[in-house]
Structure formats: C-alpha cells, structure tokens
C-alpha cells in the first residue's frame, strides 16, 4: 500500500454546466496537515463535499487507502473514519452541547437494534463509556461548563469548538476542517492553532480549508491552491506563498471584490 491515505485523482464536478471542480488531483499522507486555499468560490467546499459523499463527482476517483469511495453514502464515509466540520456551522441547535458531541459516538457505540426498546447490561456499559468519552472531549475543548446548554445559544467561537469536538468524538483517521478559523478573534485563532497541532499529535490526519493565511501557512505541511475549480499551484507553504500564479489569483479576486 502507498504512503498516501487519501488520493484524489482527476476529479471533476459540474453543477448544471458550471464546472465547480476541474480535473483536480492531490495526495494526502497519513499524519499530515494538508492545507487547501483559494479565492472565494474556487470549489474548495465542493471538493470536501465530494470526499465526504455529499456530492458525487462526475469524473475521477477518490481513493481511501486504495479503495474508491466516490459517491458512497456520507454515513459510510464517516464509518470509514473520515469526519468533518462545516463552513456554515451545522450543529443540532436545540440539543445540549453534550448531546451534540455524543452524536460523534454513534459509530463507536455497540448498542444492538433491540436496545432502542429494552436496556441490557451491555447497553448500560456502552452508554456509560460513550458519555465518559464525551466528558473527556468537553474537557479537551473547554466546553464542560456548557454541557447542558443548547448548542445554538452559544457564541460562534464556542460553536466551532463543539463541531470539532463532535467530529473528534468519532475517533477519525482523517479530520476535514472547512474554514475552522472563520469568525474567530485573534485569541481564539491562536487557541485553535494549538488545538489542531494537538489533534495531529494524536495521530489524526487533517485536511483544512482556511482563508487565514498566517494560520494555514504555519500549520500545513503541504498546500494545494485552487482557483475556478482547478489546481493552480501546490507545494510546501514557503513555495506556495511566493508562487506568482497564486499571488496573481488572489490579487485578481481582490480586484473583482472592489468592482462590486
């Protein structure tokens, strides 16, 4: 088997004629932090949606440990150990923080079909072990004091932490983060950077879309730059940073913004 845990090869995704992703390829090594950057509307989120099964790309392959997972149902992809957060936070707003994180334990829970109706000693043990894991994650993400509070009532920064805790509760092999620093203040971003490092130290591979250049450059070992659905550059942060094509793409998009 190759050293790459995830191999995306020649993937294209169309929306009614619009090319959202255009012949995109990349390889992610186990244990790596892999950054994806690009101007707004470049197709970064669409790529994550293709990996996690929300969209099925028309062309190409998405190989997870050598097996094509393209078009699999999202729940099956999560069962494989690929968990994600969302750019537009998607929590179970009315449910408590603890219950939100507990959803991450779903695939780890060993309850049998009849445990929805009758409790058994094995069920009781399973339930307890999973709640304890939720407790550990709340400690790790400094969420303990909000355990019973509906997730939707909390601030943006805290909600981002809940989403990461929820994904991590499933003990992922690959954690996919879509703009984890969006909407965070400077302190929160600093904290997040440390948290992501700690998660990597646990042995989790991380893919991350981020507009905060300082953060993405400091964390990533390798970066792919996307514009208009296609790869325009890739390499280590120091290379990508100075690549004229990348600078051009960002300046181009800035000018567009000014025109609006």
């Amino acid at each position, binding site marked *: 088997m190759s050293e790459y845990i995830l191999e995306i090869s020649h993937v294209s995704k169309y929306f009614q004629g619009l090319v959202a992703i255009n012949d995109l390829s990349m390889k992610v090594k186990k244990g790596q932090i892999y950054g994806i950057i690009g101007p707004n509307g470049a197709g970064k989120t669409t790529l994550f949606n293709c990996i996690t099964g929300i969209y099925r790309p028309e062309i190409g392959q998405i190989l997870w440990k050598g097996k094509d997972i393209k078009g699999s149902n999202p729940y099956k992809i999560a069962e494989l150990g690929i*968990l994600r957060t969302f750019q537009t936070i998607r929590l179970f707003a009315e449910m408590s923080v603890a219950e939100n994180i507990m*959803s991450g334990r779903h695939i780890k829970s060993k309850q049998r079909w009849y445990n929805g109706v009758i409790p058994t000693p094995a069920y009781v043990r399973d339930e307890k072990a999973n709640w304890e894991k939720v407790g550990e994650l709340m400690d790790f993400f400094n969420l303990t004091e909000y*355990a019973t509070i509906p997730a939707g009532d909390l601030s943006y920064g805290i909600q981002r932490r809940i989403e990461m805790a929820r994904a991590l509760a499933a003990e992922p092999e690959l954690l996919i983060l879509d703009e984890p620093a969006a909407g965070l203040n400077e302190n929160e971003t600093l904290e997040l950077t440390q948290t992501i490092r700690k998660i990597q130290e646990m042995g989790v591979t991380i893919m991350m879309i981020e507009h905060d250049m300082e953060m993405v450059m400091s964390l990533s070992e390798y970066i792919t730059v996307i514009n208009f659905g296609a790869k325009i550059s890739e390499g280590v942060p120091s290379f990508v940073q100075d690549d004229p094509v990348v600078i051009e793409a960002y300046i181009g998009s800035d000018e567009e913004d000014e025109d609006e």
Partner: protein
Amino acid sequence: MMNKTSLIAIALLVFMGFFPLFVDSAWLAVGTTFLVFSVVALSQDIILGRAGVFHMGHAMFFGLGAYTTAILNVNFGLPILATWAPAVLVPMLVAFVMVAPIIHLRGDYLLVATIGFNIIFIQVLENDIFGLTGGPNGLFGIDVVRVLGFDFSSQTHMYYMAFILLGITLFIMRNLDKSKFGRAMFYIHKDEIAAQSMGINVRYFKLYAFILGAGIAGAAGSMFSVQYSAVSPEAFNVTQSIMFFTIVLVGGSASLPGVLIGTFVMFVLPEMFREFETARYLVFGVAMILTMILRPRGIWPVRFGNIPDFLKKGVK
C-alpha cells in the same frame, strides 16, 4: 432526587390508577379510550416528533392492529391472546414494505404519500377484500381476553389493560430516548446532513422509527377492537390520522407529558363538552390554532440536555 416532572408524573399515575373507582361507565370508557389514544399518539410521536418524518397515515397502523385481532378472532376463531403478536407484527411488516420505497422522500412529498396509503387502506376495508373485513360495517362480536378460564370482560378490566399498555409504551419510549436509536432520530430531525456526516444511516433510523411506531400503534388497535368488541373503517381514516398528527404538535413533539396533554386536550376535552353537540369540535379547532400561535413548540415542549449527572458537574 425528585424533580417537579417526576412528582407530577407520580401524582398523575396514582390518579389514573384510581380513576375507575369514582366514575360512571360512560366516563370509564372515555378514560380507556384516552389511554389507548395516548399510546397511538406516543407511537406517532416516535415517527413525527423524534425522527421528524411528516407522517399523516398513522390511523392505518392503528387500524391494521385492530383488524388483525378482529379478523383472526371473528373469522378464524383465534382467542384474543393469540392475536396480540400478529396485531403488532402485521403493522410492522406493512410499515416496512410500504415505507421503505418512499422513506427518502422529502417532508411534504412523504406527507402526501402517507395520506395516500391511509386512503387505500380504507378502500380495502370498505370493499371487503377476500371477504374478511366486513365492508363498510366492519366486524362485530369480537371476544374478550380470556386467560385460564378467567374473563377480562368488564369495562374496568378494559381500563386496566389499556393502563398497562400505556405503561409499557412509556417504558419503551424512555428507553428509546436514552439510547443511540432515539438520539440518532433527533440528530436526523435537527440536521439530516450533519447526522449523515456523523455516520448515521438516515434511511435505517427513519425506518426503525416507522416500524417501532407501527408496532405500538398495532397493539393499541388490538386493545381498541376488544374494548368496543367491534371495528369499522371510519375509526381509522385520514381524519383520525390528522388527529394523531395534531395531538403531537399541540401537546409538544418528542415530549412524553406533552403528548399525553395533547391527547387530553384533543380527545377528552371535546368529550366534556358533549352537550354542545358538534360545537364541541370548536374546542378542537381553537386549541389547534391558539397553540400554534402562542406555543408553536407545543403546550409542554421537549427539553433537551438529559445527560448523566457526572457531566453536569462543571456547569455553572
């Protein structure tokens, strides 16, 4: 530790337990039907309040249980006791076969499809398919429950049997809410995409909700047919389905006390205003409108955050 809700629950339990001692037979029958309808409404709430599936054909599952008992007893002479298991299993099987092909449909589309099933069901009953259902008049002369030579034939017996059935249902619902299965239904209800992305098989858990809900409604149907010793199609038509649907929303989706209150408001209150004849249905309509305006999440809404105590230690 005792909280307010458990105290109210115990007071209510004691009241319901002694209820037959101080009412006449007419009110006893209302009490029994209240218990049976509560069971049906709770089972509707598994599908609607927990899994969040807009299902408006629940009277069909209720009717399938009732007719299974009636047909097996009246046409085939089986004792009532022997019809209990089929009365639960037949609705479960029908739920699986009918709902599996449409479970992926979005809210409003699925709503229409479930109404369609209910209408077909009534047509089948009224046209006396295979000569088993007795057509528009239904079936009469359903036996009572007999165990070892003892007949549970009085209205008081009926009441306590329904009381036990409600107890079992509440036991099941509590377990459901405290298991991975009930939680998965809530996650799907609140955000289907997020739920899927956490590894939840949406199709499986929606079907689970349907099949479990159908089985419980079937048990209530069997009880209902024995209570009245007769079944007829109009007790299971779309209007009844609308009532069960409404009970859940008026009382409070996914809230056990809410659904019991909903059943009381939508079924017992109109009985209290019986002397006003059809005007009593005014209560029905007014209650629906007022609740949706004043308390859109129901009279007694669900409260989340029922987590183990050891996780609440750090809460400020």
